[in-house]
């Protein structure tokens, strides 16, 4: 099989040192008509500068509304192999860890029932299997679920939560991101597989302010590890950094955003009361500086991409909470947020947009959080504000 199409445009993208997606499609096209027709259609797109896909419809596995995204070529006569080319989202293990054995099993099944193409991984975090037919969906689901792999989320639903590598490999993870991610994924299975929300809801868990999973930019509920007490300093290791050529004054002290550090050529000091826990000094001097021991997370809410009225970054709502397994306090907080959103949002309205419409006050009241200065960059500037009866008591 394969080689049905001449692809002079795409062939150009097999040149050069970076790994080529065209080569990947061609590999699969040797085995499946789907991948071969996919190659032909993409070549056509490169000539005409437009895509040829339709999506949506009733397509999925029985009982679920999430995990499968219907996709159809708009040129089924020209490219019959991709008349159906549905996406299947498999929920990734927390932290994207695999064994070769497990991955090969997933690939063996996919080769039997799909195009042979994948995304490792999709933008939200799922292991994405690209391209299968409607009739193969139930078979795929039975094969995967019987081996312990379930589908991820799609549509107006809880989306597959994801997290950074966390305490599995990173000394900066203040919280057990992988355990939290796994726990909330299990907790929200029903909402993940059966779209009953106003719109999508994403949860991402990052172990520290570095935010390697883009939680503040890309999750409705962003969980960021932090600490409360003093930074621990090993002065002997500080000296080694200095001896190794680091300009501690310029690279650490002067780049500290709160100017809370000083260095006299021997001792590095931190005025912890002024520290905002931004991670700069710790990230640059990981052997010498350690976070405090009172660890937990900051909870932020509301980020999303530009559609409809501009992109949002998440806002701080709970400055600090301790997070220990089984994370009931987090689940309780998330439940309250989702309930308020579900009760009040219009279709296709994200929680950040709803907070903009309704105001932060009703949201904070719904999650039973008091107003605190950590929630704002600065207070209101104009003298228009609401008073409610409860403010007069």
């Amino acid at each position, binding site marked *: 099989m394969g080689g049905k199409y001449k692809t002079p445009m795409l062939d150009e993208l097999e040149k050069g040192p970076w790994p080529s997606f065209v080569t990947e499609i061609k590999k699969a096209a040797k085995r499946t008509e789907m991948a071969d027709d996919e190659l032909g259609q993409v070549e056509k797109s490169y000539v005409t500068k437009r895509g040829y896909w339709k999506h*949506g419809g009733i397509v999925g596995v029985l009982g679920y*509304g999430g995990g499968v995204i219907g996709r159809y070529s708009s040129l089924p006569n020209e490219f019959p192999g991709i008349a159906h080319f549905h996406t299947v989202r498999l929920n990734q293990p927390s932290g994207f860890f695999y064994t070769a054995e497990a991955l090969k099993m997933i690939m063996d099944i996919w080769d039997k029932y799909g195009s042979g193409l994948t995304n490792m991984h999709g933008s939200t975090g799922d292991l994405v299997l690209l391209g299968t037919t409607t009739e193969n969906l139930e078979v795929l689901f039975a094969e995967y679920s019987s081996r312990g792999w379930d589908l991820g989320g799609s549509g107006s639903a809880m989306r597959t939560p994801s997290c950074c590598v966390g305490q599995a490999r990173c000394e900066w993870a203040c919280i057990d991101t992988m355990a939290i991610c796994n726990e909330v994924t299990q907790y929200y299975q029903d909402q993940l597989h*059966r*779209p009953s929300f106003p719109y999508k809801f994403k949860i991402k868990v990052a172990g520290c302010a570095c935010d390697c999973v883009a939680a503040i930019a890309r999750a409705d509920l962003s969980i960021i590890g932090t600490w409360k007490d003093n930074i621990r300093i090993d002065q002997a290791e500080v000296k080694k950094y200095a001896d190794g050529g680091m300009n501690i004054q310029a690279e650490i002290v002067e780049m500290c955003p709160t100017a809370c550090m000083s260095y006299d050529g021997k001792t590095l000091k931190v005025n912890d009361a002024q520290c905002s826990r931004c991670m700069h000094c710790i990230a640059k001097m990981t052997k010498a500086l350690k976070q405090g021991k009172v660890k937990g997370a900051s909870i932020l809410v509301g980020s999303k991409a530009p559609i409809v009225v501009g992109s949002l970054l998440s806002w701080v709502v709970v400055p600090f909470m301790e997070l220990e397994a089984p994370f009931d306090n987090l689940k309780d907080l998330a439940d309250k947020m989702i309930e308020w959103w579900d009760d009040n949002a219009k279709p296709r309205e994200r929680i950040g947009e709803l907070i903009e419409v309704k105001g932060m006050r009703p949201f904070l009241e719904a999650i039973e959080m008091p107003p605190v200065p950590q929630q704002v960059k600065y207070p209101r500037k104009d003298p228009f504000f609401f008073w409610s009866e409860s403010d007069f008591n």
Partner: protein
Amino acid sequence: MEQTEIQEKIFAYMQQMKGKKKLKEKDIIKKIMEESGDDKDTVKKALRAMIDVGKVMYSYGGGSSSVEIPSEEYLKEKGLI
């Protein structure tokens, strides 16, 4: 109300709205709660039982999810009508 009665109401409502408005799970539950007087959980359970057998199904279009009645051929083939 008996579950089967609730389910008949759900199906009738969905048939009535077909092609007029995309119904979300919540829209259906709200409407049937009013009609039957049952609580949210009872209606949701009845609806979910229909979804589990494929009498009605989740669908996606226009940027959001809804619940729809599948094609008549499908329902006949599966013995659901």
